[in-house]
């Protein structure tokens, strides 16, 4: 190596150390991106897919028609729909008597909400779903039914499905 090349190499090495230190110094003085979780929580992004919920109609009853499309669509077999046949105005139809989602099995894939023909299922933004025992992970109608979706949910039934990007906010 020529003497001049040697000097250049040493100077280059020193220069790169200083530019690297500039980058770390910028990070040092910038705001941390992590949160103190239980005290601070991040607001889920619009369209965030959390647990599935049943959407209520204006009277607070589930919109569900008990067609079982969700049950068939569920890859984890987490959904069970219970229904009875009733006669109304001379026509036979299904009436929902029970709906359970086993959140221990649910993989939050959203296929149930996509399969639902009557817009009765949506994915809520809730993500803190841990429980101390398996029984309390089985969600019945009481915990699944929500009134008013506020437009927050993924696959929101009140809105036209036009793909991820086209979804209306709020």
């Amino acid at each position, binding site marked *: 190596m020529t003497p001049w090349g040697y000097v250049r190499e040493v100077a280059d090495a020193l220069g790169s150390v200083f530019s690297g*230190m500039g980058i770390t110094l910028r990070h040092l003085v910038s705001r*941390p991106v992590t949160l103190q979780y239980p005290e601070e929580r991040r607001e889920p992004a619009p369209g965030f897919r959390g647990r599935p919920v049943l959407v209520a109609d204006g009277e607070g009853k589930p919109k569900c028609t008990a067609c079982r499309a969700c049950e068939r669509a569920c890859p984890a077999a987490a959904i069970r729909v219970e229904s009875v046949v009733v006669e109304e105005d001379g026509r036979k139809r299904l009436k929902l008597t029970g709906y359970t989602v086993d959140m221990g099995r649910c993989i939050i894939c959203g296929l149930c909400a996509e399969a639902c023909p009557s817009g009765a299922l949506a994915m809520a933004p809730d993500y803190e779903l841990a429980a101390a025992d398996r029984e309390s992970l089985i969600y019945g109608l009481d915990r699944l039914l929500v009134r008013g979706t506020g437009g927050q949910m993924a696959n929101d039934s009140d809105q036209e499905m036009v793909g991820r990007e086209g979804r209306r906010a709020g």
Partner: protein
Amino acid sequence: MVTAIFWALVKFALILGFMMTNALVLIWLERKVSGRIQRRLGPMRVGRPQGWLQTTADALKLLFKEDLIPPGADRAAFVAAPMLMFVGALLLYVVVPFGPQLIVRDLDVGVLYFVAVGGLTVLSMLAAGWGSNNKYSLLGAMRSTAQMLSYEIPLVFAVATVTLLAGTMSVQGIVAAQARYWFVFLQPVAFLIYLVALLAELNRTPFDLSEAESELVAGYNTEYSGIRWSMFFLAEYANLLAGSAMAATLFLGGWSGPWLPPVVWFVLKTYFLVFVAMWLRWTLPRIRMDQLMALGWKVLVPISLVNLVATGAWVVMR
């Protein structure tokens, strides 16, 4: 006689207390700095504000851990190594000048003493690596021995340059010699070489090959746990503080400075250098063994030697 022993004990206790509290603070600071550089918060839970009690809690936990000595270990070397490291770190503080009067003993050969006692670390690492009966420990110890022997030379050259300028090896004499200009302005090259060699002496990233966790588990302290491990850990940070304190003394005018009391100036300068060491650690990746040797022998030794000769010529001609 009795009063002499009494005062020696008081000084010993003060130095030990200073070293321990600062080591704990430095470990906490390192975790905070590393966190912020990675845009994390670092420890936040133990002690408000900013988790300042975290290292105290860690030290207490380590005290209560089981004392393990691996089978086949050389017991004497294994037990002696962490104590030697700790005592070596403690001995460094004898010649650290905290203020005009605040020094345990202003030895005439202060700087030489500092460098010589600093060399004890190699011995304790080698004892730890050999005594552990573990190939990773031994490899780490071998590496750090080669590294520290190589980097001792440029370190001593850089220190010798300052000694030439000051005309004395006493640390107080060196501080007094910087009354007009700090030596960092007269000797910027020696300052840089001292910092680089110091990082290598302390086995800190980018020169932490002796504990390269991606290759050697933890290097020389692989088999250590509990209180013995924490002695290594505390001594490492005490060495960092002592090395930075000496750098502040040799190049940044030591305790001298306007308005504030000397001790405050001294601690500020020392902590600034400690911060630079942490900053570098979280900036640079670890270098390879051959790069380490090349940097030591092909860059630092020749440059520091030329610098020493040129300074000597200048001092003679002046």
